[in-house]
């Protein structure tokens, strides 16, 4: 659906709410309601990928330089910070 959701009329909804195009989950950034977010201290990160492995929501992506960062699906649960081998991840509050 190309239109923003809050502009779609009832006549425009596919019968039965069927989605005929793949990838609709990509359009829904499920991390937008998080209250905390993780921040990596690259000086202490050893690129081991434990954070990426333990994230239950695929909310962490590997960057081209081999470090890790959160993506739009991070809900701020903090499991990565808890499990980080070197303790390089801090959880900070979302502002505003």
């Amino acid at each position, binding site marked *: 659906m190309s239109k923003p*959701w809050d502009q779609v*009329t*009832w006549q425009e909804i596919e*019968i*039965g*709410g*069927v*989605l005929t195009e793949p990838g609709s989950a990509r359009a*829904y950034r499920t991390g937008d309601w998080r209250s905390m977010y993780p921040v990596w201290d690259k000086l202490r990160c050893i690129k081991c990928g434990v954070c990426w492995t333990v994230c239950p929501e695929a909310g962490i992506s590997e960057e081209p330089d081999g470090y890790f960062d959160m993506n739009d699906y991070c809900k701020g649960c903090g499991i990565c910070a808890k499990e980080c081998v070197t303790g390089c991840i801090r959880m900070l509050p979302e502002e505003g």
Partner: protein
Amino acid sequence: MGHRVGMEVSIAVSHAVQLARAEAIAAYPITPQTHIVEHLSSLVANGELEAEFVTVESEHSAMSASIGSAATGARTYTATSSQGLALMHEILFIASGMRLPIVMTVANRALSAPLNIWNDHGDIMAEKDIGWIQIFVENGQESFDHSVMAFKIAENHQVLLPTIINMDGFILTHVVEPLEMLDQETVDKFLPPLVPYLKLDTKKPVTMGAFAMPELYTETKMAHQMALTNSYDHILEVWREWGALTGRQYKPVEKYRTEGAKVLLLLMGSLAEVAEVAVDEMREAGQAVGLIKPRLWRPFPFKDLREAVAGADLVIVCDRALSLGGGAHPVMAEVRSALYPLAKRPQVLGYAVGLGGRDVQPQVFKDMVSHALNEIKQGPTEEFYLVGVRG
């Protein structure tokens, strides 16, 4: 084209499903629906019906499997009753919300407790808001006819809604009636193979049953409401076609001896035939009493009902289900609500009859009419009347 047979109505319904060439049946046996699915199971086992018969472990699974099957584009049938229908409850909304054209027979039966296997409409009235097309039949021929027609209605791409045929448990399911069966060639011509609107297909993948955010949920409900409301025209179109084919023409609200009637009885299902006897006797005695029988329960035929009661002073609604703690039982609530906006409207009194298989003789309707006429003279004393209750 057709031939006349004497047959148990359940068996006739299973033959209707066979003639409709159902491709998938998922059902769990429950009295009084049992004979329908038992016979279908035999037809499949004997190779007389080429279909997948899924013996599920509950009605919740029966409806779930039906959804899966209909989603692949297979013509899907199931049947249930009472507690079985109640167990399907949450899945029924999903079938209609996903707009899957499943056809289901409900052999209407009372709900527990106390345990009671006999006929009333308590089961389906608890499911009146599930968003399915719902039709009531009153005899064996109608059971057969509507079981075939339901597929054509449900599968129409302008409709795409699951459809329930309500037939009274035991009173219809377990009696032998004379009826006209159509032959395969005629049914094939009337009902072509199902053409799925969208289906689960690895070559053209789609997502069915996705979620909707608050920004979209209201719009999906409106789309469903409009589909159900607009299905009315397509239902009538199928009924007209059947009428031309068989000579049996069905209407959303059937009338019996309503000419000049000041008092109208209103009820759905097989009990209407008993009420017809009472109407005949009252007419002979000079009373201007008629009978109206809504056949189409969902979508509710507002216009037809308003036309049917136009000349009447009093409408006596006979419900076969209760809305405990409420002021009006399901059919009466619907009828009153439909008539309330009219400038000139008849009085509407509600009577609950024939609960849990309680026998209803013609005299019951005659007494009801006298009682109701007396009540409106003095002003109704009760919100509703429970007919024949002792104590």
